[in-house]
């Protein structure tokens, strides 16, 4: 399976980065075709530029070569794995920006000019996996809603089609988590990645 792994954390020594590396290792060990993207490491810009926004509805919406490269990865991916820390009960800005800048019309979805309806364009994606860490406890997440998860498991899934499977691995209360809990979570990431079909 061709897997695109997207990671967004500023610190390469963080636990989140360890989760990213473990996910990539496990997928590679299983013989998957893995493309690993560390958004902070490649210096990806989160904000959509004025030129990109102006060209969004045209036939040629891609301005930045870095975005074009990401679109290449997206077009061939059969599974997408997102490894990120939940900030503000949502995605980090750089990951949100990755969605906005790469999933332009023709890549993420097709805007039918005749019916003015949106059709999914990522139907080759069969699996979306989220690996997220949270500072807040689970109860708080239930109250405010896990909005980052919804963006990926619902908004993005509308572009991949209803048959896309979605798996979510979350580690809440990371500030007070124990070493055992974190180790167990790493193992869970490992087994999930090995089981990816």
């Amino acid at each position, binding site marked *: 399976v061709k897997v695109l792994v997207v990671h967004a*954390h*500023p*610190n390469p020594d963080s636990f989140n980065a360890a989760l990213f590396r473990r996910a990539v290792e496990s997928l590679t060990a299983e013989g998957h075709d893995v493309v690993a993207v560390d958004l*902070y490491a490649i210096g990806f*810009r*989160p*904000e*959509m*530029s*004025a030129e*990109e*926004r*102006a060209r969004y509805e045209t036939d040629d919406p891609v301005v930045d070569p870095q975005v074009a490269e990401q679109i290449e990865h997206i077009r061939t991916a059969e599974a997408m794995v997102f490894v990120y820390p939940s*900030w*503000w*009960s*949502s*995605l*980090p*800005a*750089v990951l*949100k*920006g990755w*969605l*906005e*800048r790469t*999933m332009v019309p023709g890549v993420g979805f097709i*805007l039918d000019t005749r019916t*003015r309806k*949106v059709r999914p364009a990522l139907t080759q994606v069969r699996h979306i996996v989220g690996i997220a860490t949270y*500072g*807040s*406890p689970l109860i*708080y997440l239930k*109250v*405010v*809603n896990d*909005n*980052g998860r*919804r*963006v990926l498991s*619902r*908004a*993005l899934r*509308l572009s991949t089609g209803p048959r896309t499977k979605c798996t979510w691995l979350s580690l809440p*209360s990371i*500030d*007070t988590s124990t070493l055992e809990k974190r180790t167990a979570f790493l193992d869970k990431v490992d087994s999930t990645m090995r089981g990816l079909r």
Partner: protein
Amino acid sequence: VKVLVVYSHPLETSLAAAARDRVMKGLADGGHDAHLIDLYAEGFDPLLSREEHANHLAPPSTKPDDVLRHAELLAWCEALVFVYPTWWSGQPAMLKGWFDRVIIHGVAWDLPPNTNRITPLLRNVRRIVAVTSHGSKKWVNALEGEGGKRVLSRTLRLLCHPLTRTTWLSIYDIDNATEKSCTRHLDRVERRMRTLGKWR
């Protein structure tokens, strides 16, 4: 009412820009004290850096200048108005980055030692208003879970005064909107801004 308006859109020709102008007009007509932060115009950097992340529990005085300036405005205002387009069922990365970098420890919340429950610091904020637009229809957004709405009405509100009211002024299905429906939306925005108060 002292109002902080946070606006995020790269183009001056957009509906969001028109909404921003109507928000400012409505607030001025209503006699409110308004301050505008235009994130794209001031070239705000939405990327939380490695240093900022590593020092996120440090006192606010050690933060970068742009964060400090915005933090002062946050401590001053009584109402927060966000003007932005909804992209991928949430705030644009620019605005999300403003949250990541400015709504931080010591500014918006405090984390007592050995807990994972935060205490709110934005007690001065009594009103949160979102002025936004959605490309897709309302039921599609309902299906997607309205992530952006929850970020403001729940995550942010939990850091404000316990009686904070939130208002959602949005136009849906903008891909197929007519000039008439846009005008109606903008008129409603201006009207609501003019009469903005603690309770309404």
